[in-house]
Each structure stands twice: as C-alpha cells, then as structure tokens.
C-alpha cells in the first residue's frame, strides 16, 4: 500500500461486521484520505478471517484482538472506533498518548471528536501542516462515522453526504451533490431544518434541532446537530450530523402510552382500593403500615395519618396472633383467617375476615403485604343472634310445654295445702300446740314453694303471654318513667339513684308499648339486683336515650356487681342466671331478648366484672312488617 509521508498514522479499533465494513470502505479511499493505517484491533474476532484477509490485502501488518496487545512504539496520530460501547471509547482514550483524537461511532464520541476537530481546524489555521492534518481527520471522520453527516454550502446546497447518510436516505452521491433539499424532499417537509441551518449560517453557532424527515415514504424522526464551517472569519457552509431517533421516538411514544395505561390502571386500582368499604392497608415486610384506605378509616375510626408507620398488629386485639398470621403470609405468600379481632379507636372489638398477600419487589424479596379485611362484626352478631334465637325457640317450646304440664299438679298441690291449712285452723284444737305450729308453718312453706314454681312456669309462659297491644307511636320518656314508677318501691328500698339522660330530639317511632315496658322493667330490675349484690356501694342506675340515624337506643347502666366475662355471652340464654340461687329464674333476659327480636330490635351487653354493666337496647323506627315468628308459640 502506497502511503505518503504526510499520511496520518491511524489505528482502527472495532468489532464484527462494522469493522469489516469500515476496512472495506477504507481500502478504496484511504489513499484519498491520506490515512496510513498502522494497525487493526479486532475486539471480538467475530469475523476474524474476513478482517485479517482485508487487512492483509491493504498491507496492514498489525492485527490484534486486545488493546493491551498493541506495541508501545506505534505512535498513532488518530484512532477510529466502530464499537458503540462507551467503555471501549474510554479504554481507547486511556491507552492512547494524550492529544490523539478518537473518532467514535456513538453520538457522544462523534460529537466530542467533531467538536474537537472543528475547533482544531479554527485554532490551527496558521499552522498549515497541522491544519491539513486536522482537515484530513475531519474528512476521515465524516466518511467513516456510522452517523449521517452532510456538508452544505451557504446556499444550502449539498457539498457532501457521507456513506452512512446516503445509505440512510437511500440516495447515491451523484443525485445529491449540488442540490438543495427542495430537489430531494417533498415541498415544505424539511422547512424546520432549513430554518435552523440558516440560523447556523447567520449566527455561526452550533445548533440542535429535532424533526421529521420523509425518507423512502416513511417518517424518520431525527435529531440534527449543525456546525458552521468558518474559513477566514467567513461562514463557508455547515456540517450537519443526523441521528435517526425514530426508534427512540417510537419507544418513547410506546413508553408514554404504556406509562399512561399504567397510570390509568394505577389510578383505577387506587380508586378501587381507596373507595372500597373493606378495610385495606399495606404494610412493609416488617408489618409497619404504609397506607390505609377510607374503608379502614371507617371500620376502625382512625385517620390515615394516625396509623401510618405504626405496626399493624397494634390495631389488633391479639397482636401476637396477627404477627403469626403475618409471618405465615411472608413464608407462603398468602394467609387468611376467618375471624380476626381488631380494636377500633374507641376500644370496641371489630371482627374481620382477614386475608394477607405478600408482594415481592423486582429483586425477589418481599416488598409489601396487602391486608384485606372485611368487617363481619354485624353479620357475626346477627348470626349469633339467630343461632341463639333458634336455640331459644327449641328450648322455649319444650319449656313452655313442661311449664303447662306442671301448672296442673301445682294447682292441685296448692289447693290441697290450703285445705290442710284450713283444717288445722278449724279442727286442729286436739293437736299438740307444737305440732299444730309446725304443720301450719309447713303448709305456709308449701304455699311459698308452689309460688316459686309458679313464678318460673309463668315466666316461661310469659314468652307467649306477653300480649301484643298493637303498634303505636311511642312516647319513650313517658314509657320509661312508667317503668320507673312500677319499680318505685324497689328503687326506694335500695336507695338507688336514678339518673335520667333522655334525648330531647328523638325521631318519632312505632313499637309495642306493653312489650317495651316489660323489656325496660326487666332491665331496670336487673340493674337494681346487681347493685343489691354490692351492699356497701351507693347504687346509681343511668338511663340514657339516644338516636343514631334510623335506630333508637336506650342504655341502662348500673354500678352493680357486673357480669363475669364467661357469662357475658350466655347471659341471654334461657335459664342462665348469674343471680344467687333461688333468686333469678334465668328467664328475664331471655324474654327481653325474645321481645326485642320480635320488635326488630336487639340488645347488647358490655360489662366490667365487679364494677358495672351496661345494656344497650336498639329499636328500629318501624318494627318489621311481618312480625317475626314467636319462637315459643304453641298450640293449646
């Protein structure tokens, strides 16, 4: 290969097809470009045979596959890099002596090289030899860069178009040189480019522009960098570097679309989560709450900002039980429990159906746990009430049948006892006074015991004997006062203070006054009994009425003996009594529950054993249209 003395000692670095293309291209032009190719670094040796063959043909003796294999004494003046790897560019710059320009193919490298060369060109105008060198390098660069580069004169006619741009545009050099864009592109389609080109010529500044070039019937998104060519302080033309950004544009567009879809989906999901009535919260893998939806705010009464950052188990009645479930979800990915107890802000238990799902992050480690909780407190209470009512119905039916059968013999016993009593009184003169006394006393006890039995059987039958007097508008205050009246003697005797806290703005409501009276008399009587069991405490019974949307509530609270936790669930069961033996029949609260059930209401109990009990009666504004079946009704 013939090389002039002025040729630039050039090193080719690259890999694969790009490298062999570059070699092939230079084999016909290197002389024109005055390049002295001193070596080839084939980084991947992908098509090593072809590269070596081309190099041999071109008389290049040095072909290596690693930069470190280069001899130290080759002194290159220019390096041309085909690899798009930024790291290769850095490596090359590091290994070459300082000041040796590297023409790289990636945009950053090319721009760096271009700017450097253009600046050198300007700065070294006086030094004709070096100027020539730089120009040569520029030519080399323009020709070899895998980037579309064109040169235009001040009339914006093409002076040059490098092989890459010819390939990109699908044109050949002859049809381009000396032409303007008007001849190459449909009218008006590249005005955006011409405007920036004119500005570059006018201002002498490096400018950037993005736009669309119509190429072979397709729209090519491009980014163009324009460098003015200044000779002797006069603008002679410009370089244009064209980058095809279509792929980037399309992928950006796609990314944008995907982003939008993702946003939509996220928004939708967020709304679903946020507006769900179910309690939904997210925790980190340690169980600390990250988010808390409005359903959760409603269910537990906490505000989002109250709980975010707190450990989720702190909301639970049994923190360790939740923690166990949480651990299971981290291990298995999922964990559910049918009845888990949370505590709401006011300390009331909230029973939830709970489901925990672990979500892994991109690194495969647990990222979040989604906690989905459905409040089943009301449903559970209704279910329990129903079960209880059904059990009550069965027991009640049997009990009232038994009571009925017992009433007849009781009547016989009482009648005969009376007869004996009368006979002793009338004709017992012949008896020993002591015998007479004990017999009289015995008959008295017999009457008393019959009475006890009677109170049980009559209470049992009370389920059915509670006459429904019909539904009327209720004056709750008057009704409660009437109940207090009925119990006047007991209240005075026990010196219990009655505090009446009656709401003045209760809505009108309809119910059965006789049945309600029985309910409240029973409850107040129970309160008095509970107080009586703590003899040294001055008793207070507080009766409160209130309304909540479409329910009326009456709360009867006493500071009596309270109800042991074990008994609280069973307190409404038939025959269950917490009163001392012989005192309670275990019927009162069953009857109360039964009546309220029939009136569409309900009763709840909260009690602190030893301190107080609170019964909360809730009534609907209207009783159910078809009265619920009387669980104990039976045919005579």
């Amino acid at each position: 290969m013939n090389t002039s003395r002025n040729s630039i000692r050039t090193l080719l670095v690259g890999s694969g097809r790009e490298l062999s293309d570059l070699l092939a291209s230079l084999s016909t032009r290197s002389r024109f470009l005055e390049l002295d190719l001193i070596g080839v670094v084939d980084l991947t040796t992908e098509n090593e045979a072809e590269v070596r063959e081309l190099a041999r043909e071109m008389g290049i003796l040095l072909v290596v596959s690693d930069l470190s294999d280069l001899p130290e004494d080759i002194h290159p003046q220019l390096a041309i890099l085909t690899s798009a790897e930024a790291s290769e560019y850095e490596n090359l710059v590091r290994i070459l002596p300082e000041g040796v320009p590297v023409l790289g193919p990636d945009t950053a490298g090319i721009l760096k090289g271009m700017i450097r060369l253009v600046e050198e060109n300007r700065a070294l105008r006086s030094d004709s030899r070096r100027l020539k060198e730089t120009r040569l390098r520029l030519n080399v660069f323009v020709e070899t860069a895998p980037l579309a580069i064109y040169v235009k004169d001040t009339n914006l006619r093409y002076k040059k178009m490098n092989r890459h741009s010819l390939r990109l545009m699908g044109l050949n050099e002859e049809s381009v040189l000396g032409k303007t864009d008007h001849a190459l592109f449909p009218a008006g389609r590249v005005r955006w480019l011409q405007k920036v080109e004119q500005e570059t010529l006018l201002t002498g500044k490096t400018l950037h522009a993005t736009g669309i070039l119509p190429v072979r019937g397709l729209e090519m998104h491009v980014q163009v960098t324009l460098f003015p060519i200044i000779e002797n302080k006069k603008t002679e033309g410009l370089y244009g570097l064209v980058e095809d950004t279509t792929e980037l544009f399309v992928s950006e567009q796609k990314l944008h679309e995907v982003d939008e879809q993702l946003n939509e989906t996220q928004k939708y999901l967020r709304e679903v989560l946020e507006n769900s009535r179910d309690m939904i919260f997210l925790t980190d893998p340690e169980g600390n709450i990250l988010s808390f939806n409005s359903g959760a705010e409603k269910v537990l009464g906490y505000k989002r900002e109250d709980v975010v950052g707190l450990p989720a188990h702190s909301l639970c009645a049994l923190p360790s039980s939740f923690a166990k479930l949480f651990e299971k979800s981290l291990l298995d990915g999922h964990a559910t429990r049918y009845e888990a107890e949370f505590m709401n802000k006011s300390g009331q238990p909230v029973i939830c159906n709970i489901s925990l799902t672990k979500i892994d992050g991109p690194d495969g480690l647990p990222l979040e746990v989604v906690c989905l909780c459905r409040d089943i407190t009301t449903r559970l209470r209704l279910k329990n009430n129903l079960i209880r009512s059904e059990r009550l119905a069965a027991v009640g039916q049997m009990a009232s049948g038994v009571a009925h059968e017992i009433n007849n013999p009781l009547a016989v016993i009482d009648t005969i006892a009376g007869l004996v009593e009368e006979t002793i009184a009338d004709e017992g003169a012949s008896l020993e006074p002591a015998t007479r006394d004990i017999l009289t006393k015995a008959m008295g006890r017999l009457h008393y015991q019959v009475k006890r039995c009677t109170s049980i059987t009559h209470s049992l039958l009370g389920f059915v004997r509670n006459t429904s007097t019909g539904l009327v508008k209720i004056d709750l205050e008057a009704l409660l006062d009437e109940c207090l009246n009925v119990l006047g003697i007991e209240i005075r005797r026990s010196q219990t203070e009655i505090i009446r806290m009656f709401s003045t703005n209760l809505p009108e409501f309809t119910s059965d006054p006789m049945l309600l009276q029985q309910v409240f008399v029973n409850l107040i009587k129970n309160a008095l009994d509970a107080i009586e069991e703590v003899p040294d405490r001055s008793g207070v019974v507080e009766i409160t009425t209130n309304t909540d949307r479409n329910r009326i509530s009456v709360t009867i609270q006493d500071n009596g003996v309270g109800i042991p936790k074990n008994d609280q669930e069973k307190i409404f069961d038939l025959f269950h009594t917490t009163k001392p033996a012989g005192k309670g029949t275990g019927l009162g609260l069953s009857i109360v529950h039964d009546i309220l059930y029939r009136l569409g209401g309900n009763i709840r109990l909260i009690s602190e054993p030893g301190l107080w009990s609170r019964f909360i009666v809730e009534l609907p504004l209207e009783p159910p249209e078809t009265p619920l079946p009387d669980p104990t009704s039976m045919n005579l």
Partner: protein
Amino acid sequence: MTEENSPIRLLIVDDEEDLATFLAHRLRKRGLDVTIALSGAEAISAATELKFHVAIVDLKLPDLDGITVMEEIKSIQPFLEILMLTGHGSHDSAWEAGRLQAFRYLLKPFAFDELYDLILAAAHHRCKKMGCEFEDRLEALMAGATSPRDLIEESEKLRREYEQE
C-alpha cells in the same frame, strides 16, 4: 253444712280429678253448692239437669275443648257466669273468644282466695243482671272477711229468703 242451702250453685269442669275434688271440698266448706264434671260431656249433661250460677271451666279438656263447653252450657243456661281456667296463657283466637265469653280467667296454679273472690263476684254480677234481691247480702258476703262459719250462716239466711221469693 248443707250444700242444698247454698245461695251459689257452682259447676267445676276440669279433667284433673284431684284438683276438682279438693277444690270442690274446700268450696263446699265455704258453703257453696258444688257439682263436678270431669269432661265436657259430663259438664253439658250436668247443665241440662241442674241450674248453676257460676261454672269454672278448664280450657283443656279430654273430649271437647273448653270454649265449646262454655258455648254449650251458656246456650242451656244463658245467665250462667263462667270463670275460665288455664294452665297456659297463650293468645290464639280461641283463647281470645273464650276470654270474651268468660266473666274472668285465671291461670293455674291460682290462689284459692282469689278464686273464691271471683266466684262471689261472678255470682254477684249474675245477680245484678237478673235484678236479684239478695244483691246486698251477696255484696256484704264479698266485702266481709268471710270466715266459713259466717258464710254458712249468711248463706243459709240468703237461701231462706231466696226460697220465700
């Protein structure tokens, strides 16, 4: 103690024999003229043969139900007052109908004195409806703390006056 002389003739209709027997015994001791019927059929035949002022009818009988019995004996003796007895306080329509026909009703087991007072009140009520001349005496009987002896004397007096009528 002569039941024949009692101013109040009472029919007890109850299949609970022990109750009927001992109730009758105690009421007779208080001077009432008591007849027992242990079934609905017996009650109806007794009402056909004898005149009663008051009848105590148990709602539950082995043959006929108490309501039917009440209706039957009422149709034979329209001025007869009825006290209804029941071991059960249900409120079905039959019970309601019986309650309307009856002078009063009582739940078993009852207090004997309460029953006795009700018998007197029923007799008094009947007396008033028929314009009975012994009304005052009966009222006195009802008001007075009635020892059996007083009662017998009083009833014998009433009886005599009744027969003279």
